[in-house]
């Protein structure tokens, strides 16, 4: 047990936790927490240069992330919800599906939808995903909102207007939803199949009557097609109501509420969103021509879940260096010692200027990367990026195991009833 005194949050003498400050600390001893408050950067540096190996004040190694924890379906009034906890950062995500009628959309044009071929090659799939992502973005079907002013940390007081951090997070979540093409527009469309409506049965009672008696109420799409075919061949009037139409869309209102914030807000928020999306059940919805409105089925067995386009998982890393000061006249020595701190907590975020965020959809060297965001300094170079892809892949596997469990055990239809 070579645990050095530096690990663990217990108040320890600064003389033992720090290796290099002034020799006088042996006589002037004060709690580690005081040291951390007074001189955060030297405090972190002392931990990382400890003689027993680099450890962070939390006791983690630089490349060790905090184990995540997911709980889904705790909010009953939402279509899907999740609580994600990473260390002391806890986020609740609630997703609610609301219906957007196309008649309420200004200059809405019915999209050209070609039927998806059985074997879709890479090129056409990419093109279809892109046009569907554009459709989602244009209609603003995904509305994420990040709420930090819940008193989640001393820096975010309750009742204050959205801080810069909250706005930036909202924007990053929204753009990642769009650019990663996580959802398909096809799953958000609500269709109207004209000939299944009662109005057409008035027009053509002799055709729809036998069909409606024999039809299975749970399976109206089949009667639709048959009724339409009969009308189309028998009479020219049927051609007027030929094509199925999109009458409405599901709009997903995604609320991300930070219960507590101790660093790494983006990773926690995004994974809460992923978990909640996996938890979402949308009821089967159809357009009723008589009521001129969308009706939803109360049957849980008819509700649908989203098939997500991969699992994009983020990993945020901070690059810490003691010599943060800028060299005058560009004379910075190249060999500044630096540490990449994975999944920083709140204290570490206060000491670090340079951050890198990588979002991957798999592991290994050929893993698909969905986003890279790097800023705040020049210590992290081109060469380190490949290492980070490896670390992000390991994190991806960790999250995937947890996220796969959401549908694995929670498949029971009784949850919603």
């Amino acid at each position, binding site marked *: 047990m070579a645990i050095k005194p530096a690990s663990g949050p217990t108040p320890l003498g600064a003389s033992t936790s720090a290796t290099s400050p002034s020799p006088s600390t042996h006589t002037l001893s004060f709690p580690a927490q005081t040291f951390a408050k007074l001189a955060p950067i030297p405090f972190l540096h002392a931990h990382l240069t400890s003689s027993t190996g680099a450890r962070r004040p939390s006791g983690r190694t630089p490349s060790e992330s905090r184990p995540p924890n997911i709980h889904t379906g705790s909010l009953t009034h939402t279509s899907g919800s999740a609580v994600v906890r990473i260390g002391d950062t806890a986020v609740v995500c609630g997703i609610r599906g609301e219906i957007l009628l196309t008649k309420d959309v200004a200059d809405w044009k019915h999209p050209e939808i070609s039927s998806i071929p059985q074997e879709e090659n890479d090129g056409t799939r990419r093109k279809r995903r892109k046009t569907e992502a554009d459709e989602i*973005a244009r209609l603003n079907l995904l509305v994420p909102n990040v709420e930090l002013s819940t008193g989640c940390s001393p820096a975010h007081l309750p009742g204050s207007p959205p801080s810069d951090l909250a*706005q930036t997070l909202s*924007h990053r979540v*929204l*753009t990642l939803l769009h650019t990663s093409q996580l959802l398909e527009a096809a799953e958000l469309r609500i269709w109207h199949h004209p000939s299944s409506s009662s109005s057409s049965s008035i027009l053509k009672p002799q055709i729809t009557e036998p069909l409606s008696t024999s039809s299975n109420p749970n399976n109206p799409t089949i009667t639709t097609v048959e009724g339409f075919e009969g009308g189309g061949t028998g009479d020219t009037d049927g051609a007027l109501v030929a094509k199925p139409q999109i009458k409405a869309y599901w709009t997903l209102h995604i609320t991300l509420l930070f219960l507590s914030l101790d660093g790494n807000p983006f990773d926690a928020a995004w994974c809460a969103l992923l978990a909640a999306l996996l938890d979402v059940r949308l009821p089967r919805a159809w357009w009723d021509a008589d009521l001129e409105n969308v009706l939803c089925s109360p049957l849980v067995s008819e509700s649908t879940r989203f098939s997500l386009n991969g699992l994009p998982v983020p990993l945020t890393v901070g690059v810490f260096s003691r010599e943060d000061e*800028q060299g005058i006249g560009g004379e910075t020595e190249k060999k500044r010692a630096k540490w990449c701190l994975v999944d920083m907590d709140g204290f570490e975020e206060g000491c670090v200027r340079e951050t890198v965020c990588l979002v991957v959809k798999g592991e290994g060297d*050929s893993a698909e*990367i969905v986003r890279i965001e*790097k800023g705040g300094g020049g210590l992290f170079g*081109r060469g380190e990026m490949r290492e980070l892809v490896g670390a992000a892949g390991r994190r991806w596997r960790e999250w995937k195991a947890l996220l796969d469990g959401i549908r694995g055990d929670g498949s029971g239809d009784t949850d919603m009833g």
Partner: protein
Amino acid sequence: MASSTLSPLSRADGSAQYSFNGYSVLCAVNGPMEAQRRDELPEEAVVDVAIIPATGIAGVTSKHLESIVQKALRQIVLVAAHARSLIQITLQIIATPESDHQPARLHQSFSSIAVLPALLQASILALLSTSIPLCMFTNLTSVAVGANGDVALDPSVEEVDAATSLHVIGFSSQGDLLIAESEGSFNIATWEQVSDIAGTVCWGDLTRDNGLQVSKFWKHELNCESTLRTKISQWYSKSTG
């Protein structure tokens, strides 16, 4: 083809306009001046960035861009030289390539990172025009990678639309990777190739000899450096002549 003007505004401490690849940005710098008591930092200057979009009012997109630009400029400005003061940078986006024909396209497929090179280049020129000491220089470039791996430097709107990934990469004059923003779908090999190209474009053959034809990619015929050279030679000839 880039074009830039130094000090177009007479009432700001320093200003610059930079236009490139359809984007045009006007930047005004005020400072160093007194910071508000609650904002001031004891050991360095506060760099405050405000971005005003070409149309509409500043929203979350502007806030996100502001945070990227602020993080970069904090590295570039010698903040320790002006402790407890404020350097205020206001960026007005004057033109975007979308604004001509498709006003609503801004939020589609890719977010607004393509405007970053113009924003940073304009603010560095304006900082120089204010005579605020800087500790480095930076050049940025945007690269779009198409479905079959074709690379487009400083892509047009059509090229961005057709691309599978979009990258904005900036290197400092010391050769450090200062900014990297990438979106879309790609892998690490693509990114490394893109960052090599970006390094070559930003600072000539600074990174390494990777067999790239520099002239093939060299579209920054008038980058920051050449603007400054012209301006300095003009001033010099004025003062001596």
